[in-house]
């Protein structure tokens, strides 16, 4: 840098004119040749820039991180990134701030007599190891879609390969589990076949209960800005309340909560009625299934095959007239929706996120969205198909691909599939049978067992939480989280960067490194694997979550726990340097140094992804790119090619030639996707005389999930300071409530005082309330329902019955 500074004036003096020309050229071609001076061009003295995916949502924007004097000082959108093309949202522009909240956790803290006392890392690791040794089968890991790939992989290997225990589940269970099961039961394999390119190509975009403008703003802009370029595109907002997405929509259709099932079936009805079934495509590539043998029986995940005629018969009651009665949409609106699917000249993209997934019929609803696209032939062309979005930066990369779920193994394998478990044991060099063949507890069950006294069947006695805040994000939090307070024998370990609602009940708090304080890899919603390097040091004694896991594994190894050794007696996380010498990565001073542990773990994980043709790119390729969409396959010339669309010949390298379309992991092993019939099923709780309102919860643009990060950023906090309840104007008038006044919301599970916002950010129809869940001082999830989808086990945060009571000043 000094040399560069000294040369700066000379350099500028002599090359001003040529620099002008080259700088202008630079903006035209994003990756041109390196100019004289290259990255050292010292126009911004002392600031070094490097790429990283944004820390927040599942979109996976890339940012340029500006670092000066060991601190992040600036953020810019990355123009080389295909996802965001240089643009960010307001959270992204301020992502650098999340490292610098004044109350960062910097030392391990142990609760002693109700007080947190600082302890050494060595002692903290020992406390965890002793808890596990006491009862390895009663230990659980609660992880996250914000885990990096390496962190999730290490945790999964530690618990499944080391402890022979499958009680590991992520917060993503609350987020996209329904989408996972929807993909698996439709295509036989998880994750979208398509990608964000759809937003550049579709003619019609249908938002299914998805406030796209606030939740995935960069992708929303990628679509809606096409209007500025004169393209004729149509946005349809199918929603239960008016949002910022509705403002841009060409058609806003406000329906009664939970009737989306009937609306989707009504579209299928109309496609059949109009004779618009894509006959050739359906005959060659699809089969039909119904969820039971006979109506009235319980639905099953894989159902029963049925013929087209029977399917037609089952769908016949979903006429626009009948569905109009149920859903509150007019017959004309339903007919309009139907016409988009009947007309195959227009490319129709359906996109969804929490509205469909957080649903007691979440799997069914996912099945139906795939079904209407397959049935009508709106499938496969860029811009023409169904696509689910995720809310966390690595819900796909870490949870779905690394399999940090109660039943999962890396590479989308399952513990209860003997072949899969054997492959994992082989790759991990474990003795046969090490992996427990019985799936562990899913999120809701795990926390229920943890919050149940040990003598009443509560057989989870220790939970280690990493990178998430269940105290605020679990539904029915009094039952599933706060009940822990009365159970002194239960032990909660929390690794985090800030004090949160969860750390309040923790017994041991571990300070973590985050984002560009560590090496990491995320995987976004469109199968894109993204890598970044550590750029700054974590504060105090904060350390990587992945190191924490490995250090505990090593302590167990040292204490003689047999599971921490592989077949040959080597440590589960044995790593050696180029000279073949073992690197003691469980010692923090060796974790970063001779080897890149993140790279080693990733390369160890990569062979798993080849088993089900989800080949992720080599680390060295990720370093060069702004992420690559798997399957990434090497070409004859040695280059690596990503895949934009799966199952389609010419795009997906695993489709046999001549097939056109091939679902090579199909449910019936017949290369065909499933068109599901799933009936409308009433919700478990609906408004009644006592609790007359629907209560919906969700997010806002400025805050990310529980706002432990965004709540510490002044710009975001001031833009959206506190939680509120959105209420319909006429409902408020009837109850004598004015804008800004306080009300108390009651549900069967709890109550909460909130200010009322009428006609504000969003607008509720009559009988509907909306509360964002970001405010740690107003925990709306103490009121929500823990009823969940029978297949995906994902709870419904969007619908429960509530009562409003005015609070007298």
């Amino acid at each position, binding site marked *: 840098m000094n040399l560069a500074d000294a040369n700066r004036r000379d350099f500028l003096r002599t090359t001003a004119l040529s620099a002008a020309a080259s700088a202008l050229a630079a903006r035209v071609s994003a990756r041109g040749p390196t100019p004289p001076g290259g990255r050292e061009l010292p126009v911004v003295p002392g600031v070094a820039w490097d790429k990283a995916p944004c820390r927040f949502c599942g979109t996976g924007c890339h940012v340029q991180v500006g670092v000066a004097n060991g601190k992040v000082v600036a953020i810019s959108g990355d123009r080389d990134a295909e996802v965001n093309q240089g643009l960010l949202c307001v959270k992204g522009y301020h992502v650098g701030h999340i490292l610098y909240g004044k109350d960062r956790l910097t030392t391990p803290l142990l609760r002693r007599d109700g007080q947190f006392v600082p302890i050494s890392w060595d002692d903290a690791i020992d406390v965890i190891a002793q808890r596990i040794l006491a009862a390895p089968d009663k230990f659980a890991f609660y992880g996250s879609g914000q885990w990096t790939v390496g962190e999730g992989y290490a945790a999964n290997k530690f618990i499944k390969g080391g402890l022979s225990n499958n009680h590991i589940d992520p917060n993503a269970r609350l987020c996209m589990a329904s989408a996972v099961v929807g993909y698996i039961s439709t295509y036989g394999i998880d994750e979208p076949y398509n990608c964000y390119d759809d937003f550049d190509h579709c003619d019609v975009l249908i938002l299914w209960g998805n406030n796209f403008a606030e939740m995935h*703003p960069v992708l929303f802009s990628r679509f809606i800005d096409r209007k500025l370029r004169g393209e004729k595109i149509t946005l349809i907002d199918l929603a239960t309340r008016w949002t910022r997405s509705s403002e841009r929509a060409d058609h806003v259709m406000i329906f009664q909560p939970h009737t989306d099932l009937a609306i989707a079936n009504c579209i299928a009805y109309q496609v059949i009625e109009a004779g618009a079934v894509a006959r050739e495509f359906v005959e060659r590539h699809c089969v039909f299934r119904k969820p039971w043998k006979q109506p009235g029986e319980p639905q099953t995940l894989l159902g029963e095959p049925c013929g087209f005629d029977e399917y037609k018969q089952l769908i016949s009651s979903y006429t626009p007239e009948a569905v109009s009665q149920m859903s509150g949409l007019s017959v004309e609106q339903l007919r309009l929706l139907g016409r988009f699917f009947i007309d195959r000249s227009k490319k129709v993209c359906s996109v969804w996120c929490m509205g469909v997934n957080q649903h007691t019929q979440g799997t069914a609803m996912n099945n139906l969205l795939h079904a209407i696209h397959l049935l009508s032939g709106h499938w496969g062309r860029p811009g023409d198909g169904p696509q689910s979005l995720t809310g966390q930066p690595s819900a796909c990369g870490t949870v779905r691909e690394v399999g940090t779920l109660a039943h999962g193994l890396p590479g989308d394998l399952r513990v209860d599939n003997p072949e899969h478990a054997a492959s994992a044991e082989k790759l991990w060099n474990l003795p046969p049978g090490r992996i427990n063949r019985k799936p562990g507890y899913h999120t809701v069950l795990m926390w229920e067992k943890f919050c149940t006294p040990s003598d009443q069947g509560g057989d989870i006695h220790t939970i280690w939480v990493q990178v998430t805040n269940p105290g605020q994000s679990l539904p029915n939090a009094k039952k599933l989280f706060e009940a822990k307070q009365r159970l002194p024998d239960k032990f909660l370990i929390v690794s985090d960067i800030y004090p949160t609602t969860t750390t309040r009940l923790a017994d041991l708090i571990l300070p973590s490194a985050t984002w560009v304080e560590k090496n990491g890899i995320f995987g976004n919603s469109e199968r894109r694997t993204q890598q970044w390097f550590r750029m700054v040091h974590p504060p105090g004694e904060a350390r990587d979550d992945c190191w924490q896991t490995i250090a505990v594994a090593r302590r167990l190894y040292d204490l003689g726990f047999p599971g921490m050794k592989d077949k040959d007696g080597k440590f589960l996380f044995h790593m050696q340097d180029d000279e073949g010498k073992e690197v003691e990565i469980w010692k923090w001073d060796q974790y970063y140094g001779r080897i890149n542990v993140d790279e080693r773990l990733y390369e160890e994980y990569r062979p798993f992804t080849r088993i089900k043709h989800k080949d992720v790119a080599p680390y060295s390729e990720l370093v060069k790119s702004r992420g690559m969409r798997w399957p990434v396959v090497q070409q004859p010339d040695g280059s690596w090619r990503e895949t934009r669309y799966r199952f389609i010949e010419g795009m997906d390298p695993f489709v046999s030639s001549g097939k056109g379309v091939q679902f090579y992991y199909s449910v019936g092993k017949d290369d065909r996707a499933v068109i599901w019939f799933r009936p409308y099923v009433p919700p478990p709780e609906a408004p009644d005389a006592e609790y007359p309102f629907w209560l919906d919860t969700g997010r806002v643009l400025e805050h990310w999930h529980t706002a432990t990060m965004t709540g510490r950023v002044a710009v975001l906090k001031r833009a959206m300071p506190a939680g509120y309840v959105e209420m319909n104007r006429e409902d408020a008038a009837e109850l004598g409530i004015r804008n800004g006044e306080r009300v108390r919301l009651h549900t069967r599970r709890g109550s909460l005082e909130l200010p009322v916002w009428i006609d504000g950010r969003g607008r509720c129809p009559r009988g509907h309330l909306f509360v964002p869940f970001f405010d740690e001082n107003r925990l709306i999830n103490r009121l929500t329902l823990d009823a969940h989808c029978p297949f995906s086990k994902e709870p419904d945060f969007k619908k429960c019955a509530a009562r409003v009571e005015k609070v007298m000043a």
Partner: protein
Amino acid sequence: MEEDRPASGGQQIDRRIPEPFRRFIPIVATTGIALAVVGFVTGIREPLPPPKILGTEAMLAGSAPAAVDYADLPNAPWKRDVPRSSLEALQAARPGIFEVVLRTEESKQAALADRAKNRAFDGAPPTIPHRVDSTSAPACLACHGQGLIVGERIATKICHPPFSNCLQCHVEVSNRDAELTVENLFAGRLRSGPGERASPGAPPTIPHSVFLRSDCLSCHGWVARPGIRTTHPWFSACTQCHVAASVLDGFPDFSSAR
């Protein structure tokens, strides 16, 4: 898009009533009382007064005057010296391109300090220092499309090609008094620093990224803070003389592992 607070410290609302208007006090008062009576009667019939967005009061202290609801007109705290006229008139009243620009070190520092007020760091999207009633791009562009001067306030011209979802990046800081639960120690670079001059009098280089800041006239045009205005707005090809050479506009190359 840009900040439109007064460049100098003239935020205080002048509450004294100018001499020529004093004789109107009885009329105003009578009207006020009459409206109050009407308002009272209306209030009895209609339980809900026009709604106020959360944080309105806190807002008024520190930013542009909010639009006033019809019923609140008699008591509205607006400034009497702000010309009340149509958008067309305001647009027509923009300073001319050949108007002489006087720049001093003080006005420059004031402009830079003012600019830094609603940005977390140089390059961050500025926050919106006024109420936003309509969130559509045309509503924003009505003032920010070409820039506008209203009294002492400047609505700067948009500095990048228009996107349609303005509030994706620019958020309304509707509650300036909202306390952070905890302090944040992020220290961003608030100024990009002066450009380099090859010799005295030579045109300075552009010291900041021009990505999403491609319209120089937004900050440096004739509808901009006086301290950082260009002295020669009639030359429209800025980059002919001023070199854009920031690292961000160059060729970042991350292909080398470390």
